[in-house]
């Protein structure tokens, strides 16, 4: 059975080895599901969140995961809309990753709310002024889009292809792909932004509150840029990781290089924007609402170092590495830069979620700290395990990397050097 499911001329590890690989992750998933079950049955008293720390590990996870999942829509956008054909080498993998991230995030959200049975109220009685409404709508829609994008990849499976109607169906879906990519892009832009807006609109939390234009605070745009910046970086990271684990060459080096370059470019834009935004916030927004900015950093451990780490260490530095061709060509530098970029965004989401809530607003209130309970951590790990499992199966039974076969055929491929000709995006050069 296993053999017939694996595509021809794509050698995969023997079934036993695969099962061994699955075991720990399955165990983790089981444990996580138990933890999540506790939270659903016994209520959120199982977590260490409280009235001051209304959000915790889970929201941080959602924000980060969705930012990293941005690779899916952005690659789709580059490939199908901007006709950046090189990247079609990773597009399927990107879709799977996106699907995993988003479905995971939604699952955790359902555990996180106190009354999951009422979650659908948001669609029935939406409050159009709430960023969260926007997020809910876009994420659910986009999750559907991702699922539809995922379908053809599944249907390409060797066994499923034997069903003629599936083949037809898949072919039809393929005609849709441009529409889907477009829709995905549109939706993603919005909810990535709205996730940022989520905090930017909190006028009651001057640490997070930002000005902006029209109804969108600056964080709205910062989140979009940071998401599209790390999206490719994360794809790069995962592709590299997968090829290390599976010990197979999956894509041409140029592809990773290109991903790195795009990421670097956008990251530098982000760093610039973030710096400007921070300056405006420190000198105008925050004092305007009666909060001198220095005091946010007067509480340990959240000193100004965190600002520095966020903007310089995990922002500027990876951006530079990714922009300098010589460094980028070295896989070590390339990958670690990508990693740093991802960490940077994670840190940004962490600061906005945790530090915002930890800081007191009232003069006689205290700075509070929070450590997730094992149930929270368990649920968190379940999402990771779920991701790994889905991706492992997809990688084994579906063809995620179109170039893989060719690269196997021509082992010389890696020998030829990456020549530095500009990549043409449509008719613009990047």
């Amino acid at each position, binding site marked *: 059975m296993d053999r017939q499911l694996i595509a021809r001329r794509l050698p995969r590890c023997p079934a036993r080895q695969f099962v061994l690989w699955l075991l720990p992750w399955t165990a983790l998933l089981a444990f996580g599901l138990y933890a999540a079950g506790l939270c659903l049955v016994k209520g959120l008293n199982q977590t260490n969140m409280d009235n001051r720390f209304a959000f915790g590990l889970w929201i941080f996870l959602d924000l980060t995961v969705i930012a990293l999942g941005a690779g899916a829509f952005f690659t789709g956008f580059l490939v199908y809309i901007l006709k950046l054909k090189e990247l079609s080498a990773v597009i399927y993998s990107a879709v799977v990753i996106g699907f995993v991230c988003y479905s995971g995030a939604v699952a955790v959200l359902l555990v996180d709310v106190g*009354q999951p*049975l009422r979650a659908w109220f948001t669609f029935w009685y939406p409050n159009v002024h709430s960023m969260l409404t926007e997020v809910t709508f876009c994420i659910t829609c986009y999750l559907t889009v991702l699922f539809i994008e995922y379908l053809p990849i599944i249907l390409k499976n060797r066994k499923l292809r034997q069903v003629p109607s599936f083949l037809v169906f898949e072919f039809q879906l393929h005609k849709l792909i441009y529409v889907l990519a477009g829709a995905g892009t549109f939706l993603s832009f919005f909810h990535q932004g709205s996730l940022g807006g989520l905090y930017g609109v909190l006028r009651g939390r001057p640490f997070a509150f930002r000005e902006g234009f029209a109804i969108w605070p600056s964080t709205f745009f910062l989140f979009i840029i940071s998401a599209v910046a790390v999206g490719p970086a994360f794809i790069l990271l995962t592709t590299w990781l997968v090829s290390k684990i599976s010990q197979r060459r999956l894509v041409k080096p140029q592809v990773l290089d290109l991903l790195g370059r795009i990421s670097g470019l956008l990251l530098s834009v982000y760093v610039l924007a973030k710096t400007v935004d921070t300056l405006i916030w420190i000198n105008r927004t925050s004092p305007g609402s009666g909060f001198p900015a220095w005091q946010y950093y007067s509480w340990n451990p959240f000193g100004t170092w965190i600002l520095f780490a966020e903007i310089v260490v995990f922002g500027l530095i990876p951006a530079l590495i990714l922009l300098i061709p010589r460094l980028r060509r070295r896989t070590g530098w390339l990958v670690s830069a990508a990693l740093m970029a991802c960490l940077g965004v994670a840190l940004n989401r962490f600061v906005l979620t945790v530090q915002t809530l930890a800081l007191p607003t009232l003069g006689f209130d205290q700075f509070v700290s929070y450590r997730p309970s094992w149930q929270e951590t368990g649920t968190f790990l379940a999402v990771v395990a779920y991701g790994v499992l889905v991706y492992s199966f997809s990688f084994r039974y579906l063809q995620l990397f179109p170039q893989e076969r060719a690269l196997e055929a021509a082992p010389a491929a890696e020998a030829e050097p990456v020549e530095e000709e500009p990549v043409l995006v449509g008719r613009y050069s990047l």
Partner: protein
Amino acid sequence: MQTTRRDLFKFAAGSAAGLVFTPVPWRLITDTALWSENWPGIPRPARGEIHTRFTNCALCPAGCAVRARCVGPQPVALTGLPGQPLCAFGLVGHHLPYHPGRVTQGALEQAAAAIAHRDPKASIAVLDLRPGRTASWTYRRAMAAIPHGLYLAPKRISPAVNLADAKTVLSFGAPLLEGWGTPASVFAARERFRLVQVEPVPSPTAALADLWLPIRAGSETALARAIAQLLRKQALPPEVAALTGIPEEQIVSVARQVAENGPALVVAAEEFPAMSELNRLLGSLGRTVFPRREAPVPESWTRAAAPVTTFASVADHSIGVLLIDESAPDTYLPWSVVQKKLVPYDPLVVTFASSRAGYGRHAQYLLPTAVYPEITSDLPPALHSAAATFRLAAPLVAPPAGVVDPPTFVARMARLPLTPALRERAGAIHQAGRGTVSTWRDGKSVPVRQVKFDDFWSALNEGGCWIDSQGPQAPAPQMESGSFADPPVEQSSLPLVVVTTAVPQPFSPLLSKLYGESNLRLSPGRIALHPETARQCGVTDGARAALETIRGRAAVQVSIDSGMPPGVVRVAATPALLDLCGPSARAKVVRV
């Protein structure tokens, strides 16, 4: 042709598609959402006609008037009268019948038998934690009827205190603004007097006092003596400042304030000689401190009644049988103090209580009593009411089966004729014809002379209050100091001085709002330490620790409070912890 798996798939797919166009899925998500509104675990308040009833709060000696909002027979909210609100504890008195720690079963017959077979030579005593009630008279009569019978009060019945006329109040740790008297009247008076609070720890009263003297714990007597000497125009003993930790000039200025800005009043958490001496020197006796006429008593009672003996003045190891009435809690004597008076060989201790939290932990028999608002009892006049009063804690709900009425039990034990004592007492008051009776429903107050007894009695049972007319000013009480001793200063090597903050018992679980869900009050079983002291003891905020005194050790939880003086441990004292700490204790705190 046989059906293949694929056929089943097709059929299933079809029905799935069809189902979407039926109300089923949509009805399911709607109903489950609605179900979340009344799934198991959400109690439903009983509906019914809402009406108002009146009674008086029996939780503390202040005895505030209570207006109860009832749904059918069940009180659902207690409030004070307009302008006379209740304290936090009184507001939830109606929860007490359902207190998880409540005891409703006890070995009544066995207890009676055990008492009957006591050693005739050793004395039998009733310890009445709240003297001055009609029940107290029943006890006194019973003890008079029994050979070797003793009627014990925890301490001297303190004279009436007139806050309203005081201009300066010097308080030695008296919780003046924390349920010391009827909140409304205290705060009304508060507008007019200057409050000097002498207290080692920053209690709410200290926080709100005009002047707080953070005295070194245990040196209150020394300060009082020093001020007395200043008032006698004698020199200030040099060591006082060092002893009390209060600068000389401040002591002098306080002495001047109380002397010049009179009428002054000196009060204390626990009465002690030097304090009474101060009141005498300041001439407060008869102005801000004076004895109160007691409400009329049938003189058949007065003829045969045992004298009131203060617990301290009983000979050690003399009590064979001790009956303790905890049904109306007030002062709690640490068990070590009580034990000293009991005969060494198997003493018999019977306590009337509604929970095991108090003496029930030590007594052989715990006889369950009704709790407020089930009890029918009268209330001694509030500390600060100049005139005598008589009001009933009329029951709002019926007590459960199996509870004991302590005076009835004692009366039966002494073979007294069982008569409705409260009604008799009311009769005596009505006969005397003094004073007025106020009813809350109509807010009227009429002279007793003008009401028939039955109306008087029913008025009392509807929470009405009889207030004595201002009789001839009684003579200033002799308060010769030394009539009772200072609390013994305990010699021990333990590093920390204990300051206890009494926790009213019992209290509704809902007070978790004050104790657990906010840090407004130090919750029972918690101790407060200065950060520095805590560091020396090696404990951190919220940590579990053990409190050790010469009487033993108990598990406590630590709260760090920068307002605490170093070297002092403040204990939110449940009876168990009071037993541990005793009258005045030193302790050490160890990490566990």
